[in-house]
């Protein structure tokens, strides 16, 4: 059934596609290693964040925290804001996003198109100013509702209730699940579900490793670990640099025709690493990785063309995941 009552009802149920050209070739008779991509760009606003946005809004409505006409305030680097803007529009809320000024122009245009208001925080380095700005906004508007995706259990629950079951239904032989680590909601929710059903399934995180410009911390105590994060759900965690993310992003479109955002390139890099390990060890593997969004919103970075080092340079100092 591909008919839905409204756009919100069309959230989730995304395709899982095989990647026969990218999968490492096993010698005849050896156990097969297969790569699969879960296409979350096929959600209503084009990213995995539609699931979290819808679940967080529904949970707030059920808890009586959100009433028609209320204002939602959310710190977001883009996709969650776009998803929330669509959900807010359809359910009658106003959305104010606080976001860093170094995100791509497409994200800003999309947010404004959906009707969201944006307050920019300085790109990293000016975290002092961002802190005071954020505190100021909250203090000035105590009635605004913050869904706070980093600590909202409905974010992880969306994946526990939908992404996880969809994966196991479509690929009962799944051995590895690989996704990006941001709020950690996707990995926590999907990972918990899969490991409850089969504790042998490996849950692998790929986190983007940015240049120093983006970190801009003054000391170690300023670090941040999302409240949702529970390390026991993961089996491995990889840090992926910009160059590897760009390389894999290009490789996906060249070998499989899959046009993805750079965070997915980072995820594919980790997925390929575990796939090749399994091949070397002679183990069967069905490695499913999550495509968080497509590449459209990142075209203006220029990182889809030119040489790899030109692309890496184009992304320097940008939040690409």
């Amino acid at each position, binding site marked *: 059934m591909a008919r839905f009552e409204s756009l919100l009802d069309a959230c989730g149920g995304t395709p899982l596609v095989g990647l026969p050209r990218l999968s490492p070739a096993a010698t005849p008779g050896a156990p097969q290693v297969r790569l699969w991509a879960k296409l979350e760009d096929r959600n209503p606003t084009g990213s995995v964040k539609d699931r979290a946005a819808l679940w967080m809004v529904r949970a707030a409505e059920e808890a009586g925290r959100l009433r028609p006409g209320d204002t939602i305030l959310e*710190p*977001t*680097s883009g996709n969650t804001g776009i998803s929330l803007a669509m959900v807010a529009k359809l359910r009658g809320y106003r959305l104010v996003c*606080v*976001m*860093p000024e170094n995100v791509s122009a497409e994200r800003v245009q999309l947010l404004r198109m959906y009707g969201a208001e944006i307050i920019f*925080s*300085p*790109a*990293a380095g*000016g*975290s*002092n100013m*961002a*802190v005071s*700005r*954020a*505190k100021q906004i*909250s*203090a000035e508007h105590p009635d605004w509702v*913050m869904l*706070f995706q*980093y*600590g909202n259990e409905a974010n992880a629950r969306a994946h526990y209730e939908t992404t996880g079951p969809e994966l196991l239904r479509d690929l009962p032989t799944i051995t590895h699940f690989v996704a*990006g*680590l*941001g*709020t950690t909601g996707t990995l926590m929710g999907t990972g918990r579900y899969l490991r409850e059903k089969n504790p042998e399934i490996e849950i692998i*995180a790929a*986190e*983007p*490793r940015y240049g*120093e410009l983006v*970190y*801009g*911390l*003054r*000391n*170690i*105590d*300023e*670090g*941040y*670990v*999302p*409240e949702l994060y529970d*390390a026991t759900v*993961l*089996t*491995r*965690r*990889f*840090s*992926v*640099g910009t160059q590897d993310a760009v390389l894999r992003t290009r490789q996906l479109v060249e070998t499989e025709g899959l046009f993805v955002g750079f*965070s997915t390139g980072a995820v594919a890099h980790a997925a390929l690493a575990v796939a090749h390990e399994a091949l070397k060890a002679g183990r069967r593997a069905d490695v499913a990785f999550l495509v968080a969004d497509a590449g459209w919103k990142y075209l203006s970075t220029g990182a889809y063309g030119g040489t790899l080092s030109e692309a890496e340079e184009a992304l320097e100092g940008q*939040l690409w*995941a």
Partner: protein
Amino acid sequence: MAIEVRIPTILRQYTGGAKVVEGTGDTIADLLTNLDASHSGLRARLITDEGALHRFVNVYINDEDVRFLGALDAKLNDGDTVTILPAVAGGALAFAAVEALADNLR
């Protein structure tokens, strides 16, 4: 056994500004002890009084998080690259701002 260690900007005060230093050791714990001999104070910024890795520090061996490889007991091999990074929310708003917003919610 030479291990290349990448140091984040915020810890370069302990390495005389060096971005990359070299150390030796069979495990991460050994390596940090070895490094502290030539870069005094570095170890104390990475390891808590209880002897565990600091919550906001991530250490990677060839891009893989050591917390999933045995933490401080994670084994090292000649030629490995160790990267030390502050823990931040990937793809997030300036994390300090996120933390401030979270504080207001509590």
